[in-house]
């Protein structure tokens, strides 16, 4: 019955998944469908599209053919069932939560996260009545303790910002499974090249495409991947967007109609449709172009970063380096399990000269760019305590790995000797 069909490799999928030559023109590269809307055949066709009875395009806020290629591309790379492109990683998080949470609900989140996510969870989500309970990824029991009957999901990062933390996805997925709730993994720093969280039990994966997937620092974007693994029907009423008849769509039950990609559909036709953070087709095109070289770029990122981390660990100005690729590192064993090809390009180190030394270094570098981003072809540097994590309390800063002496690097694709030379002159200059 079942044919033995080849599964394409990662590099092949990175170029081809989701993309077929344009039916009308034969164009090979994905066209940029820079259009807001799409014509209908007749009123019945329109009704079928609006009612989700047909697959097709209506309006770029809800779906766009260029964005669709990106959605399938990333879903295929992650091993998921479907994807949804949105305007930013933050938007991806909001749309996911909007599909799962109602006012008064709780969710458990790892305290080792990108500062922007910490802010989003601590502040904006409060306006919706979504309450975060923080847990420590270094203490798995803290996740279990944080789960209450009101908990709807768990949120972690695979490789955590600002760097050097690998989360034990499999162990946390067991906690989520036991509680009957989905596990969401932000896989931005790893990308599916280094780690595929769905293989380790994640139910939903989110990305800031802005970073390594787009890879060139030119387009903001976000993506949600449906793992297709969560049984929405099993906990009846807990996730009404998935399991209850939807009044917005004449009473259809999304998980019955769309099977194992129902979550992605819910995010699109309920969340994205009503909240509106659509990805520009032009951004999708640029991000797709970047995705084609993802395996090449990520490997070079990792190789360069290991060289820089090794060099820094021998410097007299440096107190410590936190990079899982280094053999003595606290997370080295987890890195071997979850990201065997490399530990990514983002890591932190501490300067013996503290806060002031950190500020001086970021001012002195001439090749590395001082800015708030990660995952560019260009090497980047930032002092999180004075920038990305500034709005956190001192205690939260330290908890998040952004204490006063911490410098974060996102190593790019330049010749590694040039990166090292720039850091050297930066460390030595007054």
């Amino acid at each position, binding site marked *: 019955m079942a*044919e033995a*069909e080849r599964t394409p490799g990662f590099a092949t999928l990175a170029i081809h998944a*989701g993309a*077929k030559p344009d039916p009308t023109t034969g164009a090979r590269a994905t066209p940029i469908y820079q259009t807001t809307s799409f014509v209908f055949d007749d009123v019945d*066709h329109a009704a079928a599209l609006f*009612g*989700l009875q047909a697959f097709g395009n209506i309006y770029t806020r809800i779906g766009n053919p260029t964005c669709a290629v990106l959605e399938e591309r990333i879903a295929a790379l992650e091993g998921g069932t*479907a994807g949804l492109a949105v305007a930013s990683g933050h938007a991806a998080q909001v749309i996911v939560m909007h599909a799962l949470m109602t006012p008064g609900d709780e969710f458990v989140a790892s305290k080792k996260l990108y500062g922007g996510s910490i802010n989003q969870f601590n502040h904006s989500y409060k306006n919706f009545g979504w309450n975060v309970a923080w847990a420590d990824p270094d203490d798995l029991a803290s996740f279990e303790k944080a789960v209450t009957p009101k908990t709807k999901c768990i949120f972690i990062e695979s490789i955590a910002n600002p760097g050097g933390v690998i989360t034990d996805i499999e162990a946390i997925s067991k906690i989520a499974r036991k509680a009957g709730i989905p596990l969401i993994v932000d896989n931005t720093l790893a990308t599916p090249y280094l780690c595929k969280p769905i293989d380790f039990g994640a139910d939903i994966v989110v990305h800031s495409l802005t970073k390594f997937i787009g890879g060139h620092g030119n387009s903001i974007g976000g993506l949600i991947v449906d793992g297709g693994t969560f049984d929405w029907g099993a906990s009846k009423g807990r996730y009404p967007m998935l399991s209850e008849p939807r009044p917005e769509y004449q009473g259809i039950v999304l998980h019955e109609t*769309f099977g194992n990609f129902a979550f992605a559909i819910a995010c699109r036709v309920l969340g994205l449709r009503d909240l509106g953070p659509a990805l520009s087709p032009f951004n999708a095109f640029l991000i797709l172009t970047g995705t084609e070289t993802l395996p090449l770029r990520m490997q070079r990122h990792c190789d360069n970063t290991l060289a820089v981390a090794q060099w820094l660990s021998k410097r007299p100005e440096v107190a410590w380096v936190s990079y899982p690729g280094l053999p003595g590192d606290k997370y080295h064993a987890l890195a071997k399990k979850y990201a065997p090809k490399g530990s990514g390009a983002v890591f932190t180190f501490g300067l013996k000269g503290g806060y002031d030394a950190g500020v001086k270094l970021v001012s002195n570098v001439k090749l590395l760019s001082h800015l708030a981003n990660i995952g560019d072809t260009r090497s980047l540097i930032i002092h999180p305590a004075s920038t990305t994590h500034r709005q956190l309390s001192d205690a939260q800063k330290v908890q998040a790995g952004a204490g006063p002496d911490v410098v974060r690097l996102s190593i790019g694709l330049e010749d590694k000797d040039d990166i090292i030379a720039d850091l050297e002159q930066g460390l030595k200059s007054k």
Partner: protein
Amino acid sequence: MPLLFVPGNRALPLRHWCFYGRRMKHEAYGDGYIRGILNTVKTIAMVGISPKENRPSYFAFKYLLERGYRMIPVNPGQAGKSILGQKVYAKLSDIPEPIDMVEIFRASEHVLPIVEEALTLKQKPAVIWMQLGVRNDEAARIAEAAGVKVVMNRCPKIEYGRLSSEISWMGVNSRTLSSKRPRTLGTGVQRMRLGPAAGSDNSG
């Protein structure tokens, strides 16, 4: 409760599967197998179709009808009425024309008598197709023993959508890869043909 994960399809509780002690052969279907079926069958009888416009069976019926299949609704409660312009029959043996495929939209425990009836038809259908979430190994066994192809736990709308690339517009992982230009169906906006498998003919 233990869940069974079927690649490409949702997890279902173990009790929904009828094992009968056999090793399952229907975990995964090659695209060529599915494409061959959907490219070959012309007349499909859908047993268990609902007249309600928001039910998955109605969706699948409408979708396949629009793509040129001769669709025959079977539902004893709706016999004599019409759904989407097609006359509804009470049971398979009431249908006066030959059927290529029986599509079953009923719970797994109701499948066996339907398959047994299908196998008694004057012109046996070539395919028994059980909907997403529907699986009955005993029924599959007797159908296959009678030379009938079987598909279980799949939605023909989703499979057609996947293999024609239509589903890709919704960001769904079609799990296909081709450098060939997809062909439009020729009727309607955004309706695609199934197309041949890359580098092979239609029959797959």
